[in-house]
């Protein structure tokens, strides 16, 4: 179904490229010489067995881990390392494998918090919450309500997120990332621990975000059915090295990938 999109994606311009990135913690090598690119408008999957370095890769991209070697180019700017603030300002949003919401805040406040970078009324207007600061609050609330509508979470907007069921928390977290109006959205196992129906919903949201907002998406996911259906291109990591990169069908039949997942007889 995504085949035409895949060939098209290969021709688009590169939004983010990692080149030869190596990352180690003491003696443990998390990533060794990994290079790949993410093109504008595509859905790029990063897969691999447990401990392959997928989450480390995302952490490198948004600046939590600083690689010992390699370069990261984002929107044409090449850096040796990203900083979390630069990544956020450049338009990289992220969700986490184990939900990282602000548990004590309402769903609405969580998503509003995603607008922080877009709000720039200074401290003194904030003090009196009048005039520009109030107008700004309302303007961003309007955009946040659009996202709330899109994710169908209007009924829980004033509920403290710590009390929400897991599936809804994941959705609020996606909402918070979307509130940043990102150019690149990193999703770390968006469907972990979900039932079939929730997975279908989440897949629909991901496709809609990609199509309607034109957001480029990089996702890590273990459900191969989901990965193969959603993504335009797939990169496969194993033990911190890249073992395959290409359209889903090619990756599916790649011998190195099959042996990494299933093991090889020695």
């Amino acid at each position: 179904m995504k085949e035409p999109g895949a060939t098209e994606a290969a021709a688009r311009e590169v939004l983010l490229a990692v080149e030869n990135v190596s990352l180690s913690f003491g003696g443990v090598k998390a990533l060794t010489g990994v290079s790949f690119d993410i093109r504008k408008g595509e859905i790029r999957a990063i897969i691999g067995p447990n401990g392959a370095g997928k989450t480390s890769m995302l952490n490198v991209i948004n600046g939590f881990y600083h690689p010992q070697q390699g370069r990261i180019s984002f929107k044409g700017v090449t850096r040796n390392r990203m900083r979390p603030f630069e990544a956020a300002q450049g338009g990289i949003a992220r969700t986490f494998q184990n939900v990282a919401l602000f548990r004590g805040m309402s769903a609405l406040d969580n998503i509003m918090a995603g607008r922080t970078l877009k709000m720039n009324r200074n401290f003194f207007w904030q003090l009196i919450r009048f005039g520009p600061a109030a107008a700004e609050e309302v303007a961003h609330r309007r955009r946040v309500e659009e996202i709330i509508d899109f994710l169908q979470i209007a009924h829980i907007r004033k509920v403290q997120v710590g009390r929400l069921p897991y599936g809804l928390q994941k959705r609020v977290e996606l909402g918070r990332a979307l509130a940043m109006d990102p150019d690149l959205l990193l999703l770390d196992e968006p469907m972990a621990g979900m039932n079939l129906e929730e997975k279908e919903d989440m897949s629909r949201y991901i496709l809609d975000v990609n199509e309607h907002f034109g957001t480029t998406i990089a996702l890590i996911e273990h459900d191969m059915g989901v990965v193969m259906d959603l993504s335009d291109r797939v990169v496969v990591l194993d033990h911190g090295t890249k073992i395959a990169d290409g359209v889903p069908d090619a990756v599916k039949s790649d011998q190195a990938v099959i042996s990494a997942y299933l093991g090889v007889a020695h």
Partner: protein
Amino acid sequence: MFYREAGQYKTSYEADQATFPVLQDRIGMIVILAVAFVVVPLTMSSFVINSVLIPFLIFSLAAIGLNLLLGYAGQLSLGTGAFMGVGAYACYKLTTIFPDANIILLIIVSGFASAAIGTVFGLPSLRIKGFYLMVGTLAAQFFLSWCFIRIPWLYNNNVSGAIEVPTRAVFGIPVSGPNATPVTRYLIVLTIVVVMTWIASNLVRGRIGRMWMAVRDMDIAAELIGIRLPRTKLLAFAVSSFYCGVAGAMMVFLWLGAAEPDAFNINRSFLILFMIIIGGLGSLIGSFIGAAFIWGLPIMLKSVPETFGISIGSATLEHLQFMVVGALIIFFLIVEPHGLARLWQIAKQKLRVWPFPY
């Protein structure tokens, strides 16, 4: 039945984000303010005003200050007493240097001195969290207490080592020193506390409050949505110390009239910390409830035996107070670990559906 918000529909985001979205809350607040500004000064004795209401308001403000830091921004601090002291000593020095300046203005300005010192002692928060940070602020507490004793310049080389508040008048009415009436001082304290509480509520409901709570709940995710942790934490320290500093300056100038360094020791920090733990972390109304509980309860306990004509020795009475207050603190923490503010929320929720159970 009386507290029913059904049918109060909001048709704009402005109305939904108002300070008091529920009509009954608005009415309640107007009533409370009317009582505090008009009824209290007309009816209460100067004893009640001077030893119950003024300290209650001042401690509420200090509790709000600590609550902004601990309850909203999640930074543990035991330096509250010292930051209050900075405000008090700054105000004392300022009024010595500028004897003709408006004292109310100086009280506010001394908040800035406290904010600056608080920001400096907030620097460890950039590296350490939780209990370790608390130890860092403990160092601030001891260091500043030491300054209040050892730097004679701070108390104008007074031989007693204490600061004594001179008489200062605003528009011809004495507001500090021995000639100021309790009602005048009460009204000034009340006004400052009301305005600063309103400002605090604006802050915590807006972008800055969300940034603080984001840092409190999950600093990694906060960083990823573009919140700069160092700035946000230091801002919390600055604003919190500002509130504490103003409270400290009011404590000396508008309540006690004189103060020794001991007034700002570690016990003061603990007192404020207990107030917000009992009242409720991350709740402005909790700061008031906590201050009322910790400050008001001993006074009530003291007056109970008197009203029944039972005479107990003052030493025994004091021990009894400690025991009863301690037991009540434990009792309330077991019943509601989230503080009295949560009980208030639950009560409102029950009122909403009364007389039906749900």
